[in-house]
């Protein structure tokens, strides 16, 4: 627990203490203790306020959540505050020191004892109040956190949907299909089939369902085939997936953005075009999927990697920090993006 101090709190605590002091004075007088209401009032105020100031002042030295620190602080400041307060009270009430020490030492000790007793009770009251307000603040923090998370999830879903239907891609592909239907109908039909395949797998599956790695690779192949028609000999690609990994279940639409990134920022803007290599391997504890291109690569002003922030966020949400996305410069040119997906995963996180 942490105590923070400012003038407002300081004065507020003193005022509340003064109220308690008055109640204590009335209570003691009612019991018939001490030297009447006036004397009791003077002593309880001076002792109480002194203790309170001592404790508050002590907080300048003991901070942070250390409980032993606070206990030691109270063990020192309460008796000290009570003693100093008693002397001040005696001054105000018109008693001399010698009179107190020689004539009525028992009264003085009783006063200290009562001061510390009530002081402990009041300190406990302040402590509890502080704890309640901090618990409330914590609760509020958590509520804000969960709302932020909810908002973030919604935003991710929205971006995922937008990523699936990129208008520039769609219109460009349709224009190509239209022109091929005139000049090369067989090629045009094949392209339309690839577009259909791509749209079906990217749109129809809901994000909560798992696909297989094979399905995802078919989607990527259809996507790359479309680009091969559009870019002609400027694009070459290979996809390498071991047959036994095709049935592994895999989250949808994680590979396609990597390929899209390689095409958009690597190969398309490069006059000569280049190659794309998609490769999946199995390691002892993860699947390693990489998309490498020989394109423009990373330069400070290129847009490379814009679409990858989205993939990173989804990986974080799906695998709870256990998946990794690594970006490297490819040799001799271009970019290589590697995704490491752990073998085991918690389905609970996935369904989010």
């Amino acid at each position: 627990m942490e105590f923070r101090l400012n003038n407002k709190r300081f004065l507020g605590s003193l005022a509340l203490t003064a109220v308690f002091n008055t109640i204590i004075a009335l209570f003691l007088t009612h019991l018939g203790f001490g030297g009447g209401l006036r004397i009791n009032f003077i002593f309880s105020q001076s002792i109480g306020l002194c203790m309170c100031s001592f404790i508050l002042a002590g907080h300048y030295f003991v901070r942070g959540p250390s409980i032993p620190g606070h206990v030691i602080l109270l063990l020192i400041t309460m008796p000290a505050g009570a003693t100093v307060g008693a002397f001040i009270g005696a001054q105000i009430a018109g008693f001399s020191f010698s009179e107190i020490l020689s004539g009525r030492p028992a009264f003085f000790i009783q006063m200290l004892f009562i001061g510390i007793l009530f002081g402990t009770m009041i300190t406990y009251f302040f402590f509890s109040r502080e704890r309640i307000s901090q618990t409330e603040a914590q609760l509020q923090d958590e509520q804000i956190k969960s709302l932020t998370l909810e908002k973030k999830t919604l935003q991710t879903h929205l971006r995922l949907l937008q990523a699936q239907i990129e208008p520039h891609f769609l219109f460009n592909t349709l224009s190509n299909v239209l022109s091929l239907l005139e000049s090369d109908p067989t090629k045009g039909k094949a392209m339309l089939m690839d577009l259909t395949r791509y749209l079906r797998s990217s749109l129809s599956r809901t994000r909560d369902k798992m696909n297989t790695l094979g399905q995802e690779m078919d989607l990527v192949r259809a996507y790359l085939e479309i680009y091969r028609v559009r870019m002609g000999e400027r694009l070459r690609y290979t996809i390498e997936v071991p047959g036994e990994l095709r049935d592994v279940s895999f989250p949808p639409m994680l590979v396609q953005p990597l390929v899209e990134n390689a095409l958009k920022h690597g190969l398309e803007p490069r006059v000569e075009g280049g190659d794309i290599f998609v490769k999946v391997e199995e390691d002892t504890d993860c699947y390693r999927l990489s998309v490498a291109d020989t394109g423009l690569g990373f330069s400070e002003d290129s847009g490379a990697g814009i679409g990858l922030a989205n993939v990173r966020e989804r990986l974080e949400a799906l695998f709870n920090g256990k998946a990794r996305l690594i970006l490297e410069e490819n040799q001799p040119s271009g970019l290589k993006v590697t995704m490491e997906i752990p073998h085991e995963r918690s389905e609970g996180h996935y369904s989010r």
Partner: protein
Amino acid sequence: MKEVKAIIADDEGPLRQFLRARLAEVWPELIVSGEAKNGKEALDLIHRHRPHIAFLDIKMPGLTGMEVAEKIPGACRVVFVTAYDEYAVEAFEREAVDYLLKPVSSERLARTVKRLKERLETGANVPAEILHRLITRLSEDEGSRHLRYVRVQHGDGVRLIPVDEVIYFKADDKYTLVITKEGESLVRKPIKELAEELDPEKFWQIHRGTVVNARFIARVSRSLTGKGVVKLQNRPETLSVSNRYMHLFKQM
């Protein structure tokens, strides 16, 4: 009317063919004297053939259609071609620049051709300053100019770390240490240079040798000696704040 020459520039072959076929339908007398696959070829063709009209795809490798247009002021009338670009289309409309949307329809092309014929007679062309304005406005939409990745040495290769994943940067002699959840790496750049390239909204310089990612700050407190101390989320270490940077936390 004298013979009119045109060139077509698009990086996608089928689309060049398609536009050529449509032009043959709506403007049979037009001579298409060449096709270009990228911006540089388009520029060469224009210099060589001196066409009256250039159909330029906006998104081409090498040079964009707009960059080509900017390099040939007054040489020929330009028609921009784009598949989909809300910002560009809006800008073309406002500046009354000719443009076509892919896939190009014959009706729409016929309208553009009619306008082109009128304008060829008056000799009116797209003024250079309009082009310049279009290019600067459209390149602003490309995203922020702040650094998004830092290059770090990793084994034999170079890795790219997204700056959003960086918890803080710490000066290390002439270079800079990058601290992420996964560990430390070295950027071969002084922290002063990095600090200038990072987004100041997200990355706060709190000390001559420390730049921290604001989203990882848990809280800030003052030590016994009155120095500011930053506590990070899920990290044991704390970072000290020099007095000259304490103003960053005044609103907290």
